[in-house]
């Protein structure tokens, strides 16, 4: 007979405990879970992301219904446990079910603390705790404008951010004069406030709430000082209290939470408590990492595995508000006997504070730059003594450069220490994923264990564990492997293509023994590009290996429609062309016409079926706004009109665009030409930018205005327009031949070094050779829009299949429901 294990509460701590138990001893118990919420187990932490629009409800389910079924767990969802008969070992629910137990685990979490204000029972006054609250807020934002959040702590700010994203006017009411007082010191807090104000939040600090006004629904909030604020929705986020009533009623010892010992046992035999409802050594934790640690200990206990018991946790917090980096851990306030090391950089908006006691790091606060967070957190937990060399913690041994090595930190971590707090993944689990399941990148570890899949705060630590486990060399080598289908690096693949004259992706995969027969969405486009680069004449472009944008020669948009961008050389157009574009836009009812960042016209919201027709009517070349190819050449007015212009930047830009249009490249490529050093075309954040100077041109390379902004480096100065084209051609071809697929010039040049690039282009001979290869490729390019317009076969692929004919329907005269 299996023993009966019953758990009350289907939340994060409880289910994580069950998962651990199943791993240790899957057959020991018949498990029943009683959960008040009508959902399977979900990631409560991510509710903030759901509210902010970064995740869906279904994204946050941790264990779906199937999981309970597959593990033979009986789940009574939507039922509340109402009483426990500790003598007969029975639990009763509100729906009248009685469940017997041999071992009982209470994991009832906590309840949001609701301020007992007059009027708090009005419609529109809620907490932020579960899916229902989240839905209420999303719903309210559709009909109402003004939201007030009471509480300027972690939860309140995350709620406020979500409501801002839902287009509500949000005021945050806080009783203290600075935000997140439990996690931040006043300096960091003020920086945070400033940042959040710039994101659109309004703060009412040092305000004591008095009463909630309104008839049936809330209309406003009155303060003790007589002032008031209008509100259609009030979210109370002022704290939580352990949910202990049930335990109390049946005589279990309760303080603030349910009192448990190091093995999570309560005062009554066979009854345990874990999670936010439990109080261990006087502390009731309100964050998942410690709760998972408790769950792991309880799992060992109930699986019959020995352990040292739970020793309490040091906690760290991170605010999940996009655009704000805040981290705090341990004891970070200045107390007698502590010393703090502070760095404050107002220019960069960075603040760091590390608190020492007897030479050991006991706490830290970071704002603006949280890259040190996992390292600091490890130092706090390891208890390493830094007496006399405290500064090394922030500045490294020599007062700069490398601080305490991450390898040491990782090796000091114990195996069952939680690395990813969001998903409760321990160091051992990650190491197992690396050594036994063959994960070789953070991405694979995430896919395999979920580590770093929540807030992402632990990513540096996961990376460090990966490097220390595999050794730096192996990680680097594997990282080069172009995707999960092969261990071969880009260079090996390209070398094989060239040496064996491979001309199709199929051949490459076959010869190099790909472990997926047809590759994946990462390697297929890469191989197609490498083949075309190596053998522009022999290789037949494989449409089925191109991303949708390049296959349809238009940009796919989130609703499945496309956007069309005709080429406008150098950003110069004519009244005739503008008229033509306008007529076509009208004819096809284009819902949005927009000027792009690259000086062109974007026709958005076009149905796929309409694309060939539009291209025909436009009768202009494709702008390649969709491709890994030359995009635009942005220009300024230059000497043609501008009073400062020293050279004709317009002509230079048009010449460049005409010469290099349609060129396939490893990633998109943007060029620009400015007529003088005032640089109005912003040429120094382009993949290649040209700036005219008196009597010549400067050529800048490897700039980027995208996700990682980077100013370009000066490659060379030349005198004539021909030389600009010569250097540009050589540079682009060198990039085409040596970059990884999907690597922008900025990353590429950092990887191989600017000096390598300069050297490769130094001699005229080398430049000519590169140019002759790029010219060959350019000579083969045709305009894709034109080609499709001219070919029936190609055009047909844009139409949907329709006019269904059914043998039966024909006989009965029935149509298929159309």
């Amino acid at each position, binding site marked *: 007979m299996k023993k009966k294990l019953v758990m009350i509460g289907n939340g994060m701590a409880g289910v994580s405990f069950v998962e651990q138990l199943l791993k240790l001893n899957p057959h020991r118990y018949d498990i029943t879970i009683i959960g008040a919420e009508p959902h399977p187990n979900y990631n409560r932490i991510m509710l903030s992301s759901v509210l902010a629009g970064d995740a869906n409800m279904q994204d946050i389910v941790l264990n779906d219904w199937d999981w309970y079924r597959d593990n033979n767990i009986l789940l009574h969802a939507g039922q509340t446990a109402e009483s426990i008969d500790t003598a007969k070992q029975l639990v009763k629910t509100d729906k009248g079910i009685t469940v017997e137990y041999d071992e009982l685990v209470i994991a009832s979490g906590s309840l949001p603390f609701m301020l007992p204000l007059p009027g708090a029972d009005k419609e529109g006054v809620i907490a932020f705790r579960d899916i229902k609250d989240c839905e209420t807020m999303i719903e309210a934002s559709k009909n109402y404008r003004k939201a007030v959040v009471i509480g300027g702590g972690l939860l309140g700010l995350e709620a406020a951010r979500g409501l801002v994203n839902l287009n509500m006017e949000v005021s945050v009411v806080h009783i203290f004069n600075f935000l997140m007082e439990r996690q931040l010191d006043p300096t960091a807090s003020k920086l945070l406030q400033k940042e959040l104000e710039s994101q659109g939040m309004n703060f009412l600090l040092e305000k004591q709430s008095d009463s909630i006004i309104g008839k049936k629904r809330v209309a406003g909030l009155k303060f003790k000082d007589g002032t008031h604020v209008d509100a259609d929705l009030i979210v109370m986020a002022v704290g939580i209290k352990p949910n202990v009533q049930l335990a109390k009623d049946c005589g279990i010892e309760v303080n603030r939470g349910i009192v448990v010992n190091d093995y999570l046992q309560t005062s009554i035999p066979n009854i345990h408590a874990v999670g936010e409802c439990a109080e261990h050594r006087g502390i009731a934790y309100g964050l998942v990492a410690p709760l998972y640690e408790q769950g792991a200990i309880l799992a060992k206990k109930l699986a019959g595995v020995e352990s040292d018991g739970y020793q309490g946790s040091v906690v760290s917090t991170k605010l999940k508000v996009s655009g704000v980096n805040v981290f705090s851990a341990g004891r970070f306030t200045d107390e007698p006997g502590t010393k703090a090391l502070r760095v404050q950089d107002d220019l960069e908006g960075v603040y760091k504070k590390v608190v020492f006691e007897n030479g050991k790091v006991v706490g830290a606060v970071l704002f603006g730059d949280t890259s040190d967070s996992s390292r600091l957190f490890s130092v706090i937990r390891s208890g390493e003594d830094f007496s006399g060399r405290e500064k090394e913690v922030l500045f490294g041994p020599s007062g700069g450069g490398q601080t305490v090595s991450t390898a040491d930190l990782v090796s000091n971590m114990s195996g069952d220490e939680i690395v990813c707090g969001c998903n409760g993944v321990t160091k051992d689990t990650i190491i197992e994923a690396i050594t036994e399941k063959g994960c070789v990148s953070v991405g694979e570890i995430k896919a395999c264990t979920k580590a770093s899949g929540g807030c992402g705060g632990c990513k540096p630590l996961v990376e460090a564990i990966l490097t220390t486990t595999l050794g730096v060399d192996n990680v680097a080598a594997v990282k080069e492997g172009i995707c999960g289908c092969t261990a071969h690096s880009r260079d090996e693949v390209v070398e094989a293509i060239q040496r064996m004259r491979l001309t199709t992706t199929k051949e490459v995969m076959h010869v190099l023994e790909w472990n997926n027969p047809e590759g994946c969405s990462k390697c297929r486009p890469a191989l197609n590009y490498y083949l075309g680069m190596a053998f522009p004449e022999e290789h037949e472009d494989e449409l089925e290996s191109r991303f949708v944008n390049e296959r*349809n020669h238009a940009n*796919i948009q989130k609703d499945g429609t496309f956007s069309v961008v005709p080429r406008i050389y150098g950003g110069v157009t004519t009244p005739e062309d503008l008229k033509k574009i306008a007529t076509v836009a009208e004819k096809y009812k284009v819902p949005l016409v927009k000027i792009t960042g690259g000086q062109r016209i974007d026709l958005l919201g076009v149905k796929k079926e309409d694309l060939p027709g539009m291209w025909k009517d436009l009768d202009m070349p494709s702008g390649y706004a969709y491709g890994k190819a030359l995009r635009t050449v942005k220009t300024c007015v230059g000497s043609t009109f501008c009073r400062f212009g020293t050279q004709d930047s317009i002509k230079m830009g048009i010449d460049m665009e005409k010469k290099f249009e349609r060129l396939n490249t490893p990633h998109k490529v943007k060029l620009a030409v400015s007529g003088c050093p005032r640089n109005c075309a912003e040429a120094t954040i382009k993949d290649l930018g040209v700036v005219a100077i008196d009597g010549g041109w400067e050529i800048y390379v490897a700039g980027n205005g995208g996700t990682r902004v980077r100013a370009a480096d000066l490659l060379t100065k030349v005198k004539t327009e021909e030389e600009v084209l010569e250097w540009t051609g050589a540079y682009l071809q060198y990039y085409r031949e040596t970059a990884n697929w999907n690597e922008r010039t900025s990353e590429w040049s950092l990887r191989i070094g600017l000096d390598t690039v300069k050297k490769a282009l130094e001699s005229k001979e080398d430049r000519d050779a590169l140019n002759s290869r790029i010219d060959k490729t350019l000579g083969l390019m045709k305009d894709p829009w034109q080609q499709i317009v001219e070919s029936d076969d190609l055009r047909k692929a844009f139409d949907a*299949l329709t006019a269904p004919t059914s043998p039966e329907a024909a006989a009965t005269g029935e149509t298929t429901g159309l």
Partner: protein
Amino acid sequence: MNEVIVGHISEFPERRGRVFRLGELELALFKLSDGEVKAVENLCPHKNGKLSEGMVCDHHVYCPLHDWKIDLHDGLVQAPDEGCVRTFPITVDASGNVVLTIGAPAETKVS
């Protein structure tokens, strides 16, 4: 049960999607490299991406919007993502017609 001729096999380029509309239902059809034709609802469970525009690798399609990977045999989203797309039985008859079998109307959302 209803059988519908969707088109001729020659109209299906290998490993490329085609769209087929039936009332409100939109399907994505793919000819795999082994010649088999697969049909799924043209709606990614993530954010409604049009699977017909995705890249096909053996019997999987990658959604064009955020690269979820979906098994065309059973419609299951592959780990680490989760979800499921409706699949529809397809046969190719002797003369090369691609035939779709549609269940009872109630099941297929076709009014």
